[in-house]
């Protein structure tokens, strides 16, 4: 079992002829993802790694049954690409592109709501149901099937955590990257809700960072509505106030979204918070042993 995507999910790659699009289409195929088509305006009829390329999403959808799309097109065209996917009825869209104007992101989310589509990202590494389907840019070899769900804001940091989990013998059920931008489709709460329903996910690792209040909201939800145990790691303990650390998500302003407020909200919800990434497996072990002992 897994959430959002599984072994039957058929995937479209928008921007498949670009450098990132073609490289990662190949990586996804190698992982076992059913990448059935690609889109690149003006490149219709070509093939990339034997995947047929179409000029429009509509044309691709006419030939294939497509469940999800992954977008690699440059920031200036990403909104258009996302709307194109919604209009063709694709219900799950992962937007890898970074530096999308925030006004475009707001429009994407408003349109997604109208079309009943789920957006992962933007500025995400995507999502993967380990061993079944990878819609993203994460390195293949770290995502082995198991019973730990992972949800994170930041990309590379989740590879780090997933790597640590694997080293300790924990595989993953589904790993979801929310994306580092100020406006993203899925929230911690959305994903935690799905994990809670998933019988195969035994425990969840949540990787947060300073800025915003998504972690605090997640803490509320965990406290009120979750039975599956959650362990957290938070980045940005040493970040100076008022400095923007890379992505828009990671900024502390006027005392809001601080490390301390997130840490205490989570601990208050019974979520152990690791000081360092490699301590996550140890905390998981403790919480799972505690559960089994009950």
């Amino acid at each position, binding site marked *: 079992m897994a959430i959002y995507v599984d072994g039957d999910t058929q995937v479209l790659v928008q921007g498949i002829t670009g450098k990132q699009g073609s490289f990662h289409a190949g990586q996804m195929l190698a992982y076992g993802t059913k990448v059935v088509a690609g889109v690149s305006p003006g490149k219709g009829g070509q093939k990339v790694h034997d995947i047929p390329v179409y000029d429009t999403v509509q044309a691709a959808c006419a030939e294939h049954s497509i469940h999800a799309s992954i977008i690699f097109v440059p920031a200036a065209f990403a909104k258009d690409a996302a709307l194109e996917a919604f209009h063709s009825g694709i219900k799950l869209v992962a937007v890898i592109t970074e530096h999308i104007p925030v006004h475009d992101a*707001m429009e994407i989310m408003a*349109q997604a709501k109208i079309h009943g589509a789920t957006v992962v990202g933007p500025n995400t590494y995507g999502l993967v149901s380990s061993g079944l389907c990878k819609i993203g840019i994460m390195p293949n070899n770290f995502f082995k099937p198991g019973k730990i769900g992972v949800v994170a804001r930041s990309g590379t940091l*989740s590879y780090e955590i997933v790597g640590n989990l694997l080293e300790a013998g924990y595989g993953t059920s589904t790993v979801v990257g929310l994306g580092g931008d100020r406006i993203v489709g899925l*929230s911690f709460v959305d994903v935690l809700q799905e994990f809670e329903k998933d019988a195969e996910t035994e425990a969840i690792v949540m990787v947060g960072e300073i800025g915003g209040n998504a972690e605090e909201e997640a803490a509320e939800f965990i406290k009120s509505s979750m039975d599956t145990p959650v362990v957290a790691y938070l980045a940005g303990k040493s970040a100076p106030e008022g400095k923007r650390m890379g992505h828009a998500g990671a900024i502390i302003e006027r005392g809001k979204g601080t490390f301390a407020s997130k840490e205490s909200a989570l601990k208050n919800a019974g979520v152990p918070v690791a000081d360092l990434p490699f301590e996550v497996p140890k905390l998981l072990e403790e919480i799972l042993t505690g559960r089994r002992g009950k």
Partner: protein
Amino acid sequence: MKYFEYMGKSLFKEYGIPVPDGAVAETPDEAAEITKKLGSAVIKSQILTGGRGKAGGVKFADSPEEAGKAAEELLGQEIKGYKVERVLVEEKLNIEKELYLAITIDSTKKSPVLIASTKGGMDIEEVPEEYIVKKNIDVLTGMEPFVIREIVSELGFDFKAETSKQFMKIVSKLYQAFRALDAELMEINPLVIADGQVIAADAKVTIDDCARYRQKDLPYVEEKTVIEKKAAELGLAYVELEGDIAVMANGAGMSMATLDILQYYGGKPANFLDAGGGAGSETMARAIELLLEKKPRVIFINIFGGITRCDDVANAITQVLGQQKIEIPVVIRLVGTNEEEGRRILEAQSLSAYNLMHEAAQKAVELARK
């Protein structure tokens, strides 16, 4: 990108939002000259941070001479860490009431949000909740008239009052500007009622950096240090810190976690540098050169390849080491996409890479202490 008050006000003016009469001055003489036309004036330091009034950054003058003197005192002064290079000289207003009005982005609701209050003039976070009206705006339909009526009603304004009509116009125009200019924040605090007119007495405007490609007519304001600027030109996020361990990592979260782990082991990072987002080896080589400019004691490179490829990272490192003699230790941690290829490239130059982040971090801290 944050704008100075005078720039924000000139944008407001363009969009039909009333602002006080005045002009910007870079010298005391200019300030005196502007005051001649105004009679009495307010002299406001132009800095990119709030709270300047309390910090002594705003002065009043009743004559050109006084204005010159006030400007002389303010110009060149440092207020809250920012040097005052310009002052805004404006007419003194006969303020009857101070309101608060802002439009910004609500991450939770994923839409623009309007915030208004009848308690303007102070920090909005200190205003009691019951005096604040918050309205999420549907980005697809915009600031419809009914939404503005709801705001006016919730604020308890008299619909028939002339000032309410002016207020409604300002709300509509502020939203227009907010959307048209790709703003992250447009804040008027205070929005004043003076002699029966509603006027934006201050302007805080932040424009989305990601939209600069389509906002070419907007001015550019430099907030960065020299090295931060060079990094921005490379398309990388860089923040200067105080320590002696130069850091390059990929991904904002990972870069932050790298700083956290160095501090955990007692080290002091010299910077935050996110070389993520699939930067090629050429960009990364230049990023490493940038790190050397601050003369750190150790360089710590922590890469978990995803869209960033380990072979690109390795090539960047060997390229820089091949071009210049680096006398400080370089600690490398390299795993992820194309890891084997990356390690092979490093080994060919007799370099090695760590597998584990905390081991590499401990080593970097140890070397920095030597």
